[in-house]
């Protein structure tokens, strides 16, 4: 226990004395993950809500599939996206492999099911309350879905944060699709993996602590905003 604590402190000291490179890595990590969360939210909230209020055949199968996809292993997503974006693959002409946009795509694929599935559950619960009134007003389908998403937006923050947490935490997808290129596609998690594999554990621990601190800060900020907005709008 003492050894771990010492390593963490040593790591934080190393991190504090580290150069510009570290902050570039942190900035890139946030850019990639936040972009992926934005994309997954834009796509996932309407998708989850539409499934919640929809009445299509095979709906329950879709729900099961969506829930199952929440558990997609990041390395599998990374491999699939790698094969898609490779020059030898169907989307190769765009040259997205080993680039940050490629990493954003991979993370979006990874967290889209999480955002959509959690949204689906929340909207479905709300639909039970709102359904009769909305249908009485002639509102249904996609319009009802979007109305509900906006109305329960405060509880959907949790779904979005779940996606953010997964994106910030994962290594498998970004390392395969990004290539962990020094100065170009190296992010916090891949750096931690690299430093660990080099045996530089204190530095890895220091970076890990910084990563956790950042994720905590993001969550705390989201909670403050959510609480203030909820008080204002009821």
């Amino acid at each position, binding site marked *: 226990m003492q050894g771990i604590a010492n390593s963490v402190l040593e790591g934080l000291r190393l991190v504090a004395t580290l150069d510009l490179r570290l902050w570039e890595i942190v900035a890139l990590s946030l850019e990639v993950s936040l972009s992926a969360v934005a994309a997954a939210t834009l796509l996932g909230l309407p998708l989850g809500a539409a499934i919640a209020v929809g009445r299509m055949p095979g709906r329950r199968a879709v729900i099961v599939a969506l829930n199952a996809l929440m558990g997609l292993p990041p390395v599998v997503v990374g491999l699939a996206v790698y094969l898609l974006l490779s020059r030898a693959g169907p989307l190769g002409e765009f040259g997205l492999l080993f680039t940050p946009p490629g990493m954003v795509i991979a993370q979006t694929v990874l967290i889209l099911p999480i955002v959509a599935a959690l949204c689906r559950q929340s909207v479905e619960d709300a639909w039970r309350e*709102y359904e009769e009134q909305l249908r009485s007003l002639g509102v249904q389908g996609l319009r009802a879905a979007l109305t509900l998403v906006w109305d329960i937006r405060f509880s959907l923050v949790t779904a979005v944060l779940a996606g953010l947490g997964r994106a910030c935490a994962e290594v498998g997808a970004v390392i395969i699709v990004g290539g962990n290129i020094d100065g170009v596609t190296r992010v916090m998690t891949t750096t931690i993996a690299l430093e660990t594999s080099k045996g530089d554990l204190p530095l890895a621990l220091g970076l890990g602590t910084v990563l956790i601190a950042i994720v905590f800060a993001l969550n705390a900020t989201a909670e403050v905003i959510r609480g203030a907005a909820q008080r204002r709008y009821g």
Partner: protein
Amino acid sequence: MILPLRLEAVAFAAGGREIIPPLSLEVGAGASTIILGANGAGKSVLMRLMHGLLAPTAGRVAWQDADPKRVRRQQAMVFQRPVMLRRSAFANVVYALEAAGVRAGERRARALDALREVGLLGLAERPARVLSGGEQQRLALARAWALHPEVLFLDEPTASLDPSATREIEAVIRAFDASGTKIVMATHNLGQARRLGDEVLYLHQGRLVERAPVERFFKEPSSAEAAAFIKGELPWV
């Protein structure tokens, strides 16, 4: 005009149980119609069948107008518990107008007019969900008022409210009636039925057992079930 409404051998079954056996009736314009019955008699189901929230398992619900959009827009319904969006009172009314296809330029004026009619103008900017039960129900009526519907369905609108809030709601219902809106209201409050209704449809175990003008119904009910109900002796179904 979407009235009169004709129910042709409309039946409704759920969970293996027949809740409404085949029922035929015609609801015309003018008289305020009260649907009376004990709890579980099928009042709410009947209202939802008429309003189109439930599809009958047999028979046909036929309005005078064939256009489904017009049919939808000429009706409004107020439920026992009002459901408001997380927005201001004003925004909730505007939402209904928007859904009904009212032009953007007209929405603001109509919403304010409706809020004024129910006495909520001062609370227009308040988040709807922080209003009291009575205020929210008045807001639900304002939302319906703004739509100027031909028919207003009310499903036990004051069952959850205290007497003073109930009085306020009844005043608004009277205003609707005075403005020409057809009222169809389910209630088990006999005094309210007498105050607001012109005719009574009495349901017993899903069957329409009696239909009569309100005063005759209360003074000389022609069915045994209705008589027992009025005497307050009817057991819970």
